[in-house]
């Protein structure tokens, strides 16, 4: 079920009313109901894959229980290995099997050896990368004795399958979300209203920004051989806003929906395009995944301890794995590698912990230096996004090559019957809205709150894309 669909528009109020009306008196019933609603939400796509969620839930629940019971370190390691093997095995099979088979055949083919290994027609279950990482974090934290395992299978099941964040995060930690299922929920009006605001803002980001950008991005990337330099540059910029609007919009709706049910989900985006360097960008972009990799991969590898060489190695590992997590395609690996390269000078110059605050704090406008820093960082990320969006590495390289060799910067009329620059106006409004509310999670505050709400609803109605509705990009990961 998509957040921006009619079915969700019906599903959400029904679940909300039953949850706070019928099941208000019993926490247990509320959790059972949330679990059923979550399974319905997920099963709307493909009910067969519910078995995978259930299996992942059961494995990690019982591994957690056994980890608590045994003090034997070897047994504990075996149990952790079992959970890792099961979850990563699921992910590996469904997401990467064909990729590895094809890469294997290609590499032999390059050496002149033709191989006949058939690939399988595997459908990628929606959200598998998200819920496997969420359950893994539980098991690893139990193993590390950072949290107590739960003995309540319903609570654990709903923690894994909680519908607002099931298919595209935020990837929650058990330490943060699991206890919320054991705590009596009280309906707090301010929190629920802020949830509605976040949903509204998320819908704006998705339907007005991301889906509108998608129309231009598809026209430009799918036909890049005929585009001039200006259109190609704009294509990269539009994709930067498409993916940001798409994913941060989803996260906002998820967090907002969570609040309607009395839950507090972690913030997943914090104005990443106002970052002054790549390190800051990664503290603000897909925060739940960045911190997951930091805690469960980067730090165990040694993190920023050890020699410079080890630090560089760790940075490359984490970015390459992060790239690969996004999809079974070398384009994502290159994307991750590029970010590692961009990060490298900061690491070597000990600049990666700079800019921990919000840009232009207590000022309405950035300094010229800050503006240049933000533009430079945005340029770097947009450049890397080209690899993320392109179908193949060759396409990405040709796309970039054409930017530099075409040298034509005039208006271009695209196949979508629009000029290449038209989207800039909406993006400009969006950037200004974000900038002037950068210390807030959404713009609906202050004395003009209702004016802003009406303006956003008006834009949603008139500028939103409904006939060409796009799935959320991160569903495919």
């Amino acid at each position, binding site marked *: 079920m998509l957040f921006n669909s009619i079915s969700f528009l019906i599903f959400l109020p029904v679940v909300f009313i039953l949850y*706070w009306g019928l099941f208000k008196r019993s926490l247990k019933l509320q959790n059972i109901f949330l679990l059923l609603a979550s399974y319905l939400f997920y099963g709307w796509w493909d009910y067969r894959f519910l078995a995978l969620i259930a299996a992942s839930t059961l494995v990690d629940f019982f591994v957690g229980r056994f980890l608590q019971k045994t003090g034997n370190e070897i047994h504990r390691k075996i149990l952790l290995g079992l959970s890792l093997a099961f979850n990563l095995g699921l992910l590996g099979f469904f997401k990467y099997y064909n990729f590895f088979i094809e890469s294997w055949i290609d590499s032999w083919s390059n050496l002149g050896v033709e191989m006949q290994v058939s690939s399988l027609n595997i459908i990628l279950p929606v959200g598998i990368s998200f819920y496997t990482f969420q359950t893994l974090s539980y098991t690893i934290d139990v193993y590390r004795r950072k949290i107590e395992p739960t003995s309540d299978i319903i609570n654990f099941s709903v923690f894994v399958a909680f519908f607002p964040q099931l298919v595209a995060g935020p990837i929650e930690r058990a330490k943060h979300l699991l206890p919320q299922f054991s705590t009596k929920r009280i*309906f707090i*009006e301010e929190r*629920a*209203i802020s949830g*509605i605001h976040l949903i*509204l803002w998320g819908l704006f980001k998705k339907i007005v920004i991301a889906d509108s950008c998608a129309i231009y991005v598809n026209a430009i990337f799918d036909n890049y051989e005929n585009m001039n330099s200006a259109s190609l540059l704009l294509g990269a910029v539009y994709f930067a806003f498409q993916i940001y609007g798409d994913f941060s919009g989803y996260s906002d709706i998820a967090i907002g929906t969570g609040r309607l049910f009395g839950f507090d989900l972690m913030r997943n985006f914090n104005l990443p395009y106002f970052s002054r360097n790549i390190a800051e960008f990664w503290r603000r972009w897909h925060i739940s995944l960045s911190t997951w990799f930091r805690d469960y991969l980067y730090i165990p590898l040694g993190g920023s301890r050890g020699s410079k060489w080890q630090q560089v190695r760790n940075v490359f590992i984490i970015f390459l794995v992060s790239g690969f997590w996004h999809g079974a395609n070398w384009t994502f690996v290159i994307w991750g590698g590029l970010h590692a390269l961009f990060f490298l000078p900061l690491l070597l110059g000990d600049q990666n912990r700079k800019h921990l605050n919000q840009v232009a704090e207590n000022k309405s406008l950035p300094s010229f230096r800050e503006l240049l820093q933000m533009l430079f960082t945005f340029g770097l990320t947009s450049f890397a996004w080209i690899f993320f969006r392109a179908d193949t590495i060759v396409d990405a390289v040709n796309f970039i090559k054409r930017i530099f060799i075409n040298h034509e910067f005039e208006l271009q009329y695209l196949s979508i019957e*629009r000029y290449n620059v038209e989207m800039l106006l909406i993006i400009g409004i969006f950037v200004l809205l974000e900038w002037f509310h950068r210390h807030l999670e959404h713009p609906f505050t202050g004395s003009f709150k209702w004016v802003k*709400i*009406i303006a956003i*609803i*008006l834009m949603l*109605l*008139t*500028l*939103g*894309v*409904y*006939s*060409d509705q796009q799935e959320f990009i991160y569903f495919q990961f």
Partner: protein
Amino acid sequence: MKNFFKYLISISVITLLLMFFLDKGYSYAFKNGQPRSKIQNMLQLKNKHYDVAFFGSSRTEKHINCELITKLTGKSCVNFGISGGSPGDMLILMKLAESRKFTFNQVFMQVDYNYNSYGITKYFKANLIPFTDNPIVKKQLLLYKEEFFYRRIPFYRFMVFDKVVGIREATASFLKLSQNTNIEIGFLPKQGIGKAVAGSFPETIKDKSPELTQMQELYKDTNTKLEFFTAPYCKEVKNRNFMDKVQLKLPGLHNYIDLFDNKDEYFFNCGHLNEAGAGVFTKTLIEDLLK
């Protein structure tokens, strides 16, 4: 909870009010603004007479040069062809033309593989959205079970078809911005030479085409002569003998499918002529049918 529901109701009321006023605004723009589609154009005009009218898909829109017909024969001509248009779409246009008191001496309807199709296309339906209160449109949509429930939700109908009747078109209509092309003449030629997208005609033919039959009934006992024609296709298209089966169903069909079998330079792609090909094809029609 009470305040929360009040808040939700406020937002819902605002949304509904905005939808109501937007619906009124968009409808006004499409009904009174500059016509930017052939449907819009027809629904704004009344009491027009043309000697010759052409109906069909892109193979009419891009092949029939009405200016050339008028120049060579002195006959007034209109091209109602719409890219992707189906016989169902054209039937609605014909019925709308009748209701708007359009009169024609000769009507040409283009028939090919579309003999097998039934119903109206999405693009055409989108263009009808601002006019769903028109009795003809309403009746036809009902007939095709296209009486969408959301027609009753203000503005939702425009949102669903935003690509065709969204803010861009509404604003352009309202600001009276014309299309680059003359939609009243309706000829939109293709440029270039090629024979790509050969494709295939169906292997079997339906018993009958209810929409073509209705067209025949519409012009029966009137002063308008309805004729069917088939525009040229490249010889690479598969199952071209499908047209022999159509000929059996429509004995009077003027079949030009093989007209340019040895003239590759007249094709833009397998199913469409380029401007030069369209000119020669139009002249052929003039010679054969319009003198």
